[in-house]
């Protein structure tokens, strides 16, 4: 039983490794197919009168060819795909910068039209500072307030952008 379990795990790991090894080619294949699919509703036209679908189809073909070459190229084995597989498995903390940085930016976008530039900036910096590894509450707060004030002041007072403070 134990042997079977181990082989199942190693089989799954091998599959994951193979997936990440070819992730770049798979991404290109997926993109190519999506573009082909998206171009279906666009008229192809003819050479004398090219339609809006002609150019996207050419792009899809390039993407699919690039996917094929990426699979076939000998350098492919040295790509970061396999590394990514290992890393992705490590911990969820790996994704903290990805989620945190984009989240801080999205939070700013959500808040800015509702509560003005100052509060939105403050929220954005607070999240970003914590995500970047600063865990000292007073420093984080002080830095966030000062940066939000300075940046909002720069954009509103000096660059004269038409956004409210609050």
């Amino acid at each position: 039983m134990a042997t079977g379990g181990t082989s199942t795990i190693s089989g799954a790991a091998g599959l994951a490794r193979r997936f990440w090894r070819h992730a770049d080619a798979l991404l290109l294949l997926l993109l190519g197919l999506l573009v082909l699919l998206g171009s279906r509703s666009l008229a192809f036209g003819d050479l004398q009168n090219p339609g809006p679908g002609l150019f996207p189809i050419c792009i899809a073909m390039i993407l699919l060819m690039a996917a094929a070459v990426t699979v076939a190229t000998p350098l492919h084995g040295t790509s970061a795909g396999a590394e990514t597989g290992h890393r992705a498995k490590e911990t969820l903390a790996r994704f903290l910068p990805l989620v945190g940085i984009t989240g801080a930016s999205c939070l700013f976008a959500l808040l800015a039209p509702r509560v003005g530039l100052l509060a939105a900036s403050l929220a954005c910096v607070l999240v970003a500072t914590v995500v970047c590894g600063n865990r000292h509450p007073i420093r984080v707060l002080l830095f966030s307030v000062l940066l939000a004030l300075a940046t909002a002041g720069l954009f509103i007072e000096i660059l004269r952008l038409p956004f409210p403070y609050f």
Partner: protein
Amino acid sequence: MLDNLLFGFGVALSWSNLAFCFVGVTAGTLIGVLPGIGPLAGVALLLPLTYSLPPIGAIIMLAGMYYGAQYGGSTTSILLRLPGDSSSVVTALDGYAMAQRGRAGAALTIAALSSFVAGTLSTLLLALAAPPLAAVALSFGPADYFSLVVLGLIAAAGLGHGSVAKSVAMVALGLLLGIVGIDITTGMLRFTLGLRELEDGIDLVSVAIGLFGFSHIIFSLEESRSEQRAVAPIHKLSLTRQELRDSALPTVRGSLLGSLLGVLPGGGAVLSSFVSYALEKRISKQPDAFGQGAAAGVAGPESANNAAAQTSFIPLLTLGIPPNAVIALIGGAMVLQGITPGPEVIDKQPALFWGVVASMWIGNLMLLLLNLPLVGLWVQLLKIPQTYLFPAVILFASIGVYSTNGRAFDVFLAAAFGVLGYGLLKLRFEPAPLMLGFVLGPLLEENFKRALLLSRGDLAVFVTEPKSLVLLGLATALLCVFTLPSIARRRHKVFAESDN
């Protein structure tokens, strides 16, 4: 030409334009000094600041940032063996070795002086070469333009980092993103996913900030290293006679080489510095001295990267074709300011063209003063922890994107491009060709369709027009060269070395 240059100096020496130039070169030096934020991310971040500026001031500032970053990058290369951006990677080899021998000040002086000489020579070249090239460009038809763009995109893909196939795919993805929105000939919507915000196309600033700002910050945080490197002490900035002799000719050669490679599609500061180093090592009587602190190993690449940064404006201002991704962004900034980059800029916007050319020389002079006496200040900036630096960049980027159209959607889009850029970096795709494809996509499609319309559907138009035939021939030859196994192995080796 002299009259035009004097006119340009008149424009560039106004107080406001001097201030814009100063802000640009200072920000450029800062971007160059700080590892992880390259000129591409820097220009993208600075772009929103230029919306409320007059067009000439905006372009002077962005140009200053690009060539200023080449200066700043050399400082950390020499003092810490930590290149601020890719074009300073080779400077670290001999610059840091000189610093280890107690000649850090001399290495910094060589880097600054050679960059200044290169800046002066390439400014002259820009003033000399641009007007005749613009006149030639006016005779280009749609087929010629299509072939020129194809050549530029293939060169950019081949000269980029990593696999050629992946770079070509990035160009294709950029072309696709560039055509999102209303098709100009039929008025049909393409790839808008039902979102009204995408009907006018994807915002350039969102793409640039997401791909080169957010994704690089995320990547840097993940790969963050806390090691502190010792800064080499700076004793004296003066050069010995031998050092002056050793760096004089490499500076001239580097300036000429960089000026030439900067103009070529796909060329730019990074390629020029690598080629210059290889050339100096090959023709040197003491090739073994390279890597051990050879003055020529600093002077050649530093002059080459600065010259290339400046002459890479020639294709943009004369043909309307950016040769690399940073210039593509600056071209985008021109469009946002209501100026169409191309052969008509010189005639219709002489104050802009000659003002920017003259500002480059003034900017180089400012950089000389900023980088030599104030070198200690720039080194101090390296001590700012990323826990404070990155949040400031993220906020600045978010407000910048938001202020473009006053829409939250653009910020969400930038965040999405940040995720995409991170994924691409993880899978070792080079995002720079994507940017070039994005900017050139509409131009490529428009000229392709116009050429076919004018030739009544005859595809042979692309090979019967002499200029188009030559350009397509060059593009095909380049593609063949890049895919040759021996060249592919060599590329792989060069990029592996630069990564280390």
